[in-house]
């Protein structure tokens, strides 16, 4: 990652970026689940083992939040970001477990100009989130990013 400050014009389809090194702990999995997704397979190892997930696993929403943190640390605060308008699709592909270390491979899929907001545009990013072994999730995000001089 360079120290560039990115505006809408700096993104072109096909650009790729890699970032993140998020260490997932059991404590954080349980803490997030207790607040937002209190289901047994996100809070208890034994219940996780008995579930379709085959062991304690992070809430999918927690995986998204950890992705956002990696994106924020590496990228959002070096970008003229105005927040997201949404997420086209999210796929939770594999369980995320204590001890996993996550990273993101991000690709610019498309850039979109908006009639309604002349000083910014949408940059469609695809995040492929991996642990140390395999891909665990994929998200297509739609952040609004200011144009240069806006």
């Amino acid at each position, binding site marked *: 990652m360079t120290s560039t400050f990115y505006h809408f014009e700096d993104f072109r389809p096909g650009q790729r970026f890699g970032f993140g090194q998020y260490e997932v702990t059991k404590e954080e999995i349980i803490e997030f689940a207790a607040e937002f997704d209190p289901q047994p397979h996100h809070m208890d190892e034994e219940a996780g083992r008995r579930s379709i997930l085959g062991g304690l696993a992070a809430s999918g929403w927690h995986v998204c939040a950890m992705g956002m943190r990696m994106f924020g640390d590496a990228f959002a605060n070096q970008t003229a970001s105005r927040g997201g308008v949404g997420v086209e699709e999210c796929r939770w*592909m594999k369980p995320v477990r204590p001890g996993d270390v996550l990273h993101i491979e991000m690709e610019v899929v498309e850039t979109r100009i908006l009639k309604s907001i002349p000083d910014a545009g949408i940059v469609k990013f695809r995040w492929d989130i991996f642990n140390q072994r395999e891909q665990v999730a994929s998200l297509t995000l739609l952040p609004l990013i200011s144009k240069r001089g806006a």
Partner: protein
Amino acid sequence: MWFEEIELGVKRTIGSHKFTQDEIIAFGKKYDPQPFHVDPVAAKRSSYGGIIASGWHTVAIWMRLMIEFQKSLGPEAWRGGVSPGFEDLRWIKPVRPGMTLTYSTETIEKIDLKSRPELGLIKSRNEARDAHGMLYMSFVGKGFIPRKPAGEAS
């Protein structure tokens, strides 16, 4: 509730949540530290004119309300809980401190799974609206729901 028993097209209110500035900033500091989520002074200068909640926070609250709602229906109501993902999540309007959003869910599609005959997949439309009925957030959720085993009474 088994997959077979889930009704299409019934919109249910699952609960409401009031967003405080403290919890918006706490979530932002942990997971989405952009200035307009964590810093009241910088947020005032931003295009939003003040602190707003992370979109991931507004949708995480949906999850909690959904679980509380299912639990309130009794132990037989919630057999699901594992999801392969979601589609078409829209953060439509900024959610500001002091606002109360009311969340709803409606099953819009039931899909048979050839690969997993013991489960069905449901799609649900989920929304968050303010007291005036203005839409702030919506998405299409997906969930695996167990099918009724052969011989099980309903």
